């Protein structure tokens, strides 16, 4: 009987849940990352309240009024070249969290309800702006980007709350309800009945997928390097001679070589962009512009392309 009541409560919650999940307008959470969708253009979206909450990120609703920093990190390169306009209005649509573009478009005098406006500006790297909310309340953010070539206008609208109080104890209560229900199911033996008929077909499919994936890529090339002016030292720009051979020991000539690299432990690349500036013959290539700026473990990723084949070799070194 209790189990039935819980199930009823849960199904009632689920009936409302889709609306809750859909309440974000142009801002959605994907894999724990907050994303704004300006038409098909996407950007990592986050808001900070540095004076109140330090480095804590918010996706849209903000705990208090005060200084708020909006950040959009582009996931689509096209946004780098588009002037972006940003407007914050009071949410007067009467639709609350479900306000959409059409509701915003229906507002007669947008200026009258605007609390913040930033002229279209092209930000090639990352879009940032700061606004200090003087009062709490319901707001709508409007982001518009215009394609400079086609003139097409892309826009995103997202309702948000300033002074958001959170869900209080509701998630905790719901969690307890779910837990109780699971315990009830476990005790009533229903789980056992569900799991009595396993599905070997699924396991076979997994095995087949594993077999279909390609074997580990065998290196086509062997790369060794020597330096022109003593062993590599940090903070000094220097040059390498790369020697490229096939696995059979034949020198590789006429290859197009590109080099990148970095420190995997620090999640950053090289401070410079080294380039092969000269082919010296006999499988030797001069690589200029290398500098390592930290001691530790470095990887140089060397991509080699010839008419016949291509491959990538990773050379690692510890400084």
């Amino acid at each position, binding site marked *: 009987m209790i189990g039935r009541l819980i199930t009823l409560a849960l199904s009632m919650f689920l009936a409302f849940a889709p609306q809750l999940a859909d309440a974000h307008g142009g801002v959605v959470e994907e894999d724990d990352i907050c994303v704004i969708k300006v038409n098909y253009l996407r950007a990592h979206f986050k808001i900070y309240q*540095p004076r109140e909450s*330090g480095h804590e990120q918010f996706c849209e609703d903000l705990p208090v009024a005060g200084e708020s*920093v909006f*950040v959009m990190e582009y996931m689509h390169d096209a946004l780098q070249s588009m002037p972006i306009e940003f407007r914050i209005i009071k949410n007067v649509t009467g639709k609350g969290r479900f306000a959409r573009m059409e509701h915003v478009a229906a507002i007669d005098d947008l200026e009258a309800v605007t609390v913040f406006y930033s002229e279209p500006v092209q930000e090639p790297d*990352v879009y940032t702006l700061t606004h200090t909310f003087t009062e709490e309340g319901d707001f709508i953010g409007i982001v518009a980007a215009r394609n400079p070539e086609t003139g097409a206008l892309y826009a995103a609208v997202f309702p948000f709350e300033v002074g958001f109080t959170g869900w209080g104890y509701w998630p905790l209560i719901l969690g307890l309800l779910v837990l109780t229900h699971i315990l009830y199911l476990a005790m009533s033996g229903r789980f056992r009945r569900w799991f009595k008929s396993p599905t070997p077909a699924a396991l076979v499919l997994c095995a087949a997928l594993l077999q279909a994936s390609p074997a580990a890529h065998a290196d086509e090339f062997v790369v060794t390097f020597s330096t022109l002016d003593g062993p590599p030292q940090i903070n000094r720009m220097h040059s390498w001679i790369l020697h490229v051979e096939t696995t059979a020991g034949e020198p590789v000539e006429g290859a197009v070589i590109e080099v990148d690299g970095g420190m995997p432990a620090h999640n950053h690349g090289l401070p410079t962009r080294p380039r092969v500036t000269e082919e010296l013959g006999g499988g030797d290539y001069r690589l200029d512009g290398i500098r390592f700026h930290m001691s530790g473990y470095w990887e140089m990723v060397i991509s080699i392309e010839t008419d016949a084949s291509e491959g990538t070799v990773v050379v690692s070194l510890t400084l």
Partner: protein
Amino acid sequence: MRLATLVAVVTTMVVAAWLVWRWDALPDTWSDEGIAILQSLSLESLPPLPPDPTNAVADDPRAVEFGRRLFFDTRFSANGAISCATCHQPERRFTDGLPKGVAIGVSKRNTPSIVGTPYSPWFYWDGRRDSLWAQALSPLEDPNEHASNRLTIIAIIVDDRDYWRMYKALFGEASGVDTMFSNIGKALAAFERTIMPTSSRFDAYVAAVVAGNEARQAELFSEEEIRGLRLFIGEANCTQCHNGPLFTNNEFHNTGLISLEGEVPDKGRVAGVREALADPFNCRGAHSDDPGRNCPELEFTRTGPELIGAFRTPSLRNLENTAPYGHKGQIATLADMLLHYNEAPDAMIGHNEAKPLNLSRRELEHLEAFLSTLAAPLPDYVGGEEAEESIVTTSSL
């Protein structure tokens, strides 16, 4: 039986206490590897200043003297009261003690020290200039700094008999405005190339370690400072970026500092490198004195989103005298800066390269104690001794 139990308990406690004490004890000596790292950080290892082929007068004593006078001259400003030394005050190790420089207006960032910067391939927090002389030109025309302009500046020099004589001896007769303006930057750079750090207690300690003089080591460094130094070159990962005798790799890193009140997060190097590449006074430009235009820094520099929010690693020498810290002077004290690194929070823009250190409060205190050993007397620079004497005279009056 009871006695045996008592003896067993006491023995266990003594052994445990000894183990705890040993666990936390300092090793008596430095390993060869440790000594090598210490030496790499010592001022003794500072190589001679590399030449600047883009500046023909970089090491000309006449240019040094001309540049020194320009550096302290307040006439090159909109209100006649601002010189380079307004923000780069020699007695404050060429900084100003403020979060952001204050001249005609408030500048964009914290005033960096000039001491040792001639060694860097890039200038400014965001590296938006690629030579000392190109850097020296921008504040003169920055509306928040000197707020002057190249024509006015050239006119002042031509009208001043001494200056005009010094200018002509170095660069010849009047020529194009931009050429004359760049020459003024080159004289300022020649002076700035003489501003060098002086030896600190840390450098003396390294000398004592190398000499194996234990008595002298104990005299120079407390146990806390040695512990801090061991953390600095070890667990705290400081030497990843603060390496070499100037305690900087002169490269650009995002360390996730918080934005300054009322400002958006500073984009840093990603924008700075774009500016450096487009600067008409850069190494490839018409005013470089290098006929071959050999500009490896510009040629091989990295650009792109990895540099969002990245700033040039500052030297740690004289850290005590150069507060506040950070590109916006956001951090008031060393202790706060160490706390920031200990937590390494997510960056507001880009990604924080530092990882949380999770050091204890005591360990952070040790690090701070070590950093205080990098304090040193006023930097060396041409004319510095006379200036010091005048400071002493003024203060004794």
